């Protein structure tokens, strides 16, 4: 039995950050990874989709080059080359994580781990079964795509996100089931590259977790890109048709049949809790994940859990933050997790990004809500660079002018939203937003204007 200070099970964003932070605090850390360092995020999630979306964006820009006075041939999508570039990006980042862990002195062990007794973890790896003993164990095993229990869900051509990333050729047509972040990103990717895309969402709106205005804007954008969108619609079955899949949809207009070469099921993820020996160890969990407190501690002293396996929003940046909190609190430092300023992004075209409360949630919580909006078609930089779709929406409360939420649809939304994340963390009010000089010309000016609009005094909106 090998002793160590802290064992991390899982090398995704939550796990590797736990390991790095714990090592920084002086602990001897052993990290066990079953498949690939960097987890879903780096290997088959956030990063590879962003690499492919970057290729799609270049394709899109070239296709509208004439608007900018640049003559270029009609672009062609070289899917295998895009895939090769994606693989390079992933390899580079995974190598980076391995290097960081190595430099930090973290022992990385390959294999499947499970809790084998109080304070012990058994790892089934290349060298057979080995056991580590540690007073602190952090579970960071992540999540897997949720499989829909529908007829035909196991047909060839029905993919999850991992399968869609590994496609060898661009599909002529694609059905995307699920209008959340993952579904919308793949819909954007393939619609841009010429596939006929159909998006099906069970709820009345795309991006159902985001502010209502965000979902409506993204829907319009997708329609303009030639995709079809069915909301308030359920998929009831997938059948093997003539050379293609036939999906049966049940929506407000009754049954609709959609034919598509491939179907992507992007209907959420489930925490990876199986095979870890949680029950035997007494770690409390349910189908939503392992239960943790604000210090990321589970029901068993000495055992912590971070990231998707704890359910919740299942975002890499939340997992990373939780990892730092778990490392600190397990090593006796004061740390706790807060969730009032968690940004979330949808990398569609245009991008969408939000942090804090939606307008509706703010009203439901009883705030006297003030909303300020500013459209990018009134912003100089956006017009100059030809990216005028979208808007910025500031949600604040009337009493102190405290910022409650920031919702952005538009180019570079994911970069712009962090002003709101910082603002919420530091409890900014509209006064500070108005007092902050935003550079000109920049997309950020739209944020300042939205703040002024919430105060009832926008300078760049025509008086109504």
């Amino acid at each position, binding site marked *: 039995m090998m002793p160590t200070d802290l064992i991390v099970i899982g090398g995704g964003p939550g796990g590797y950050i736990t390991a790095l932070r714990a090592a920084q605090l002086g602990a001897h850390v052993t990290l066990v990874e079953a498949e690939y360092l960097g987890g879903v995020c780096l290997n088959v999630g956030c990063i590879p989709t962003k690499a492919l979306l970057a290729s799609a964006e270049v394709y899109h820009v070239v296709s509208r080059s004439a608007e900018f006075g640049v003559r270029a041939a009609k672009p062609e999508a070289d899917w295998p080359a895009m895939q090769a570039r994606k693989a390079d990006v992933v390899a580079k980042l995974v190598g980076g994580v391995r290097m960081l862990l190595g430099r930090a002195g973290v022992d990385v062990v390959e294999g499947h781990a499970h809790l084998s007794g109080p304070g012990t973890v058994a790892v089934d790896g290349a060298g057979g079964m080995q056991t580590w003993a540690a007073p602190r164990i952090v579970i960071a095993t992540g999540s897997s795509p949720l499989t829909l229990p529908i007829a035909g869900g196991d047909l060839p051509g029905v993919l999850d996100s991992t399968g869609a990333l590994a496609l060898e050729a661009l599909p002529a047509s694609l059905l995307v089931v699920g209008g959340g972040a993952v579904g919308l990103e793949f819909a954007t990717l393939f619609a841009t590259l010429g596939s006929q895309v159909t998006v099906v969402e069970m709820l009345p709106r795309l991006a159902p977790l985001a502010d209502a205005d965000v979902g409506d804007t993204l829907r319009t954008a997708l329609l303009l890109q030639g995709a079809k969108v069915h909301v308030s619609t359920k998929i009831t079955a997938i059948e093997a048709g003539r050379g293609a899949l036939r999906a049966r949809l049940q929506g407000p207009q009754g049954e609709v049949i959609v034919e598509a070469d491939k179907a992507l099921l992007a209907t959420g993820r489930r925490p990876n809790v199986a095979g870890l020996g949680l029950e035997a160890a007494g770690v409390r969990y349910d189908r939503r994940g392992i239960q943790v407190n604000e210090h990321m501690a589970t029901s068993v002293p000495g055992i912590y859990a971070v990231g998707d396996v704890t359910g919740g929003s299942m975002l890499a940046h939340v997992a990373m933050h939780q990892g730092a909190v778990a490392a600190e609190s397990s090593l006796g430092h004061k740390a706790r997790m807060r969730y009032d300023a968690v940004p979330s992004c949808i990398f569609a075209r245009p991008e969408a990004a939000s942090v804090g409360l939606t307008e509706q949630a703010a009203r439901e919580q009883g705030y006297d809500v003030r909303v300020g909006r500013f459209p990018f078609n009134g912003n100089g930089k956006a017009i100059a660079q030809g990216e005028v779709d979208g808007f910025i929406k500031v949600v604040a409360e009337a009493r102190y002018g405290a910022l409650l939420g920031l919702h952005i649809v538009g180019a570079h939304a994911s970069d712009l939203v962090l002003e709101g994340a910082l603002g919420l963390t530091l*409890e900014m009010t509209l006064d500070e937003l108005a007092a902050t000089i935003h550079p000109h010309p920049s997309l950020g000016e739209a944020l300042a204007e939205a703040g002024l609009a919430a105060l009832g005094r926008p300078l760049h909106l025509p008086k109504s």
Partner: protein
Amino acid sequence: MIREVILPQLGETMNEGTIVRWLVHEGDTVQKGDVLFQFETDKAVLDAEAPAAGRLLKILQPQGARVPVLAVVGFIGEPGDVLPSPSGGQIVGCALHPIGAAARSGATSLSPAVGEGTGVRAPRTFASPRARRAARERGLDLAGVTGSGPGGRIIQADVLAFAGAQPRATPLARKAAAEAGVDLSTLAGSGPGGRIVRADVDQAGAVEAAAAPVAATPGEIIPMAGVRARIAERMAASARETACVTLTSDVDATRLVELRTRLKDAYAEALGYAIGYNDLLIAICARALREHPLVNSRLEGDSIRMIEEVHVGLAVDTERGLLVPVVRHADRLGVAEIARTVRDLVARAREGRSGPDELKGGTFTITNLGAYGIDAFTPIINLPECAILGVGRIAPQPAVVDGEIAVRQHLWLSLTFDHRLVDGAPAARFLQRIARLIAEPYLLLA
């Protein structure tokens, strides 16, 4: 040149200090700024630094001596210098560096009246005109300010930094504190980098509000602040804005009592807590709300919003005043889960550690005064909700069952609803449904 070493004055109230120990011996060579000795006031232990480079020629006041402020305690010079009389030579002020945490409060009130009545000239400090003006405007003594300019000269920024060494707080916390009359310097920050955040201010306001009645004496005037002010504002708004009607009903709770006793006996050990009446009532109300969505609504402008989620609040009396932690999605939780959630929420509310969403967003509230022997009452609606259920005591009473007199457990329910949103009959049906679920709690399984 001979320099006098004096005991610095720290604040107007400091009259004397005790030399804790000398860190330098007579004859030792010191550099300007070296710590010569430590002295203790009634507030803190502080360092006194050498006013100039040279040799410590003489210690006049040994360790343990109690010395009046600004008194000469030693001399610095060069070998061969002749020691002057204490009132003669040039005195250069000692820069102060607080050691004890309590030093700040004293240091910020350093008196400009240095040297008066001691027969010793005020220590000279090197400071820019703007620094002097900034200090004068703020009533600060430059002797307490450490200079960062050329040659240790005090510049304006040093004064501003000294004056601004106030607690760090977020903009929202500052506004909330100003409104609630909470002194930020008395708070500990729980935000990023120890910043004082809104929750810290709220908690302080609440503690003050709660502490006030305890300390209150007849004739005293207690300011309306913190939780007290918010309760006042919300109760008055509810009384003013709602068209409230209260319905009461006497319910047979015999089976509820049996169920509660069994659940308690069967699960208390396994769960680590006992399931209580409030937990069962939350489950019952959540079920009834799901079945009577009209009551699970709120008035928004000139329309009624039917709320999809069922979030049930429970009024809790705490040291901080009345708080209403909210069990979110109570209709989806089992009784044990409700019980656990309620315990967590109440514990956090009592400690003032409630999360941002835990005390708001309810769609219905339960208030239970049964523990105080109250039967029926007229609760006030917790805006913007539509209704509130008042729960009285459960007590054995004679009742007619199947034509016979029998002893049954009675429970009075008082439902206050907003007649703007719901009419009497549907509200009565809602109360009737709650009564039925209490009388026959196994219906919860149906």
